């Protein structure tokens, strides 16, 4: 190798060493960014986005820099928005990032956001990138472009992994082996098919915010319905009134689409919640309803949530049975004859998924994540230094 090339190589090695040392220093000083890829929920409440934003906010509250990344082509500039508003013209929602302020609250909506289609996204080796399992394309492109930061997949729904990943591909092809799973079920599912993720999988259960709690005032006889499909609502409410006209005074309330805090207030006001969400991997709606003191009449999802038992709710498979179940629950509410075993089961579930437990888990995870990353970088640094010294010795 010519002298010039050797000098060039040593120069590169020194730069690499310097860069790694800087990255290690940044990690030790909390001088790095946690990036989270998100989709625009367009103000529609979404359990998956809620989990990601809550995690980002929790990390920011601990003093870390956080940035939410999204992709939006042809996004309005601020000037364009102001001009349209001045001329009282409608905004095209497909050209703007609406975000989560409307349903999750300003404290989440005002986290730093960046459109990577519009702004230059700079990443350093000390940064971390959290990718929802559905973003297979992001996994691929960040791998292809040799992005230097550490990548984690946030796994909330295993079904999305099988749905979006092309046949013949797996996470190892994208250099991904670190996972945060929302529960043990999800962790087990992914570890079974991608065994290399098992040593690097952390389960961080979500938390249910404090504003989901039993009310101080006694409840009204309202039956809340949480169902994605309007047809399901009709299949419950209409037959109930046909079969039990003596209960025509029972009010049903569809809770779709409300901002989180308003939704919590409405849950608190009611006494029974009918929950239909077959594809949920966690079952937020049911747990939130229990927290608010509602008896839950719920459809057993495809993936049975880990908290679900025979004693903390009334579970069904066939939606046509729901009117009879509601009749029984309403009769018991009116007579104050709710079975103790059900009340006790709900109380036990209520104790789970607290913010305190979540905070502990996040703290432990962050400590471990940073320590591991420092360890990896130190190893690379040592190897690079050794290689550099070897070359210097050879030259001499």
């Amino acid at each position, binding site marked *: 190798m010519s002298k010039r090339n050797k000098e060039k190589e040593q120069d590169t090695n020194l730069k690499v060493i310097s860069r790694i040392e800087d990255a290690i220093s940044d990690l030790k000083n909390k001088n790095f960014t946690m990036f989270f890829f998100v989709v625009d929920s367009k103000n529609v409440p979404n359990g998956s986005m809620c989990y990601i934003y809550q995690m980002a906010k929790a990390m920011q509250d601990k003093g870390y820099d956080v940035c939410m990344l999204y992709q939006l082509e042809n996004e309005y500039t601020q000037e364009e928005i102001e001009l349209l508003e001045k001329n009282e013209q409608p905004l095209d929602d497909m050209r703007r990032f609406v975000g989560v302020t409307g349903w999750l609250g300003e404290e989440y909506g005002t986290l730093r956001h960046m459109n990577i289609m519009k702004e230059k996204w700079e990443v350093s080796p000390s940064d971390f990138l959290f990718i929802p399992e559905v973003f297979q394309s992001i996994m691929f492109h960040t791998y292809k472009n040799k992005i230097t930061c550490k990548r984690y997949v946030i796994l909330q729904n295993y079904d999305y992994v099988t749905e979006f990943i092309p046949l013949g591909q797996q996470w190892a092809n994208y250099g991904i082996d670190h996972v945060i799973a929302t529960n043990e079920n999800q962790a087990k599912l992914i570890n079974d098919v991608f065994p290399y993720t098992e040593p690097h999988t952390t389960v961080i259960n979500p938390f249910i915010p404090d504003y989901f709690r039993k009310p101080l005032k006694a409840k009204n*006889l309202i039956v809340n319905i949480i169902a994605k499909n309007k047809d399901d609502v009709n299949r419950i409410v209409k037959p109930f009134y046909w079969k039990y006209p*003596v209960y025509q005074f029972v*009010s049903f309330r569809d809770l779709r689409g409300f901002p989180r805090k308003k939704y919590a207030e409405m849950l608190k006001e009611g006494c029974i919640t009918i929950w239909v969400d077959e594809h949920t991997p966690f079952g937020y709606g049911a747990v939130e309803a229990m927290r608010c003191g509602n008896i839950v009449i719920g459809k057993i999802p495809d993936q049975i949530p880990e908290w679900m038992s025979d004693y903390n709710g009334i579970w069904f498979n066939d939606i046509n049975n729901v009117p009879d179940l509601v009749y029984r629950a309403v009769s018991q509410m*009116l007579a104050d004859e709710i079975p103790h075993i059900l009340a006790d089961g709900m109380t036990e579930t209520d104790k789970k998924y607290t913010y305190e437990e979540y905070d502990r888990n996040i703290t432990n995870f962050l400590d471990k994540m940073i320590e591991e990353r420092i360890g990896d970088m130190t190893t690379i640094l040592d190897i690079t230094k050794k290689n550099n010294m070897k070359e210097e010795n050879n030259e001499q």
Partner: protein
Amino acid sequence: MNNNDVTVIIPMHRDCDEAYAMLEKAIESVEKCREHYTDGEIDILIVAPFVTHKSDILAHSYTTWCLNDSGNNTYCGQVNFAVQHIDTPYFSILEYDDTYKEKWFKFFSQYLYGNEEVSVFVPVNVVTDKNESTWRYANEMPLASYFSSEIGFIDFDCLQDWSSFTLAGSVFNTNDFKTVGMFKPSIKLASDYEFLLRLTSKKLKVMVVPKEGYRHVIGVEGSLLSRYKNISDDEIQKWFDLAKREYMYDEDRKKGISKKKESIEIK
């Protein structure tokens, strides 16, 4: 006296064994309620235009017999008389041939919290026949979200379209009851309705507690309503129309109805 002590007023108008047998069951239902009510005491005041010699009735604890010597022996007259002789912040009316559900006062206490401004707490009544072969609810309609401006409350507007309420079993704020003028004994059949119109027109609140609290048996011979079993629908309607005209007055103007169109004064 606690803030939430209650007097149960039982108007009696029959002095016979059959009536006393029913009264005994009514009192027992109050005693069961006491086991669940931890927010105060529940006393019983039986009011009648005669004195009883039934020692077993008088032997019940916290039970007093009150002789109504006012000359007004109507149901409303008896209740008004009894209310003048109690000192508890709340009272409830129990017809001698009915019973409470044992947790009714516990429910009242639960719903009182955060609703201390409410003047009347009305139970969902379970109305059955003597054989308990059929049943229906009474007072339940305000629990429907579309019924009134606030779910669970009876307001003046909803009373324009719906008059089928019964206040037996309800828990009244004693002071509010007296302030609005108490019941009007001259208004037959529709006295509960007239009272509700009067109360709600003054923006006082009436809440229907979404719990079964009271059991009413229909078709009992000698009951207060049995006096009206031969009354015509037209006459019933006239009493309710009278209620709609008289609610504006706090005092009982002793107006009656006639089969002719104009109203006449009863002296």
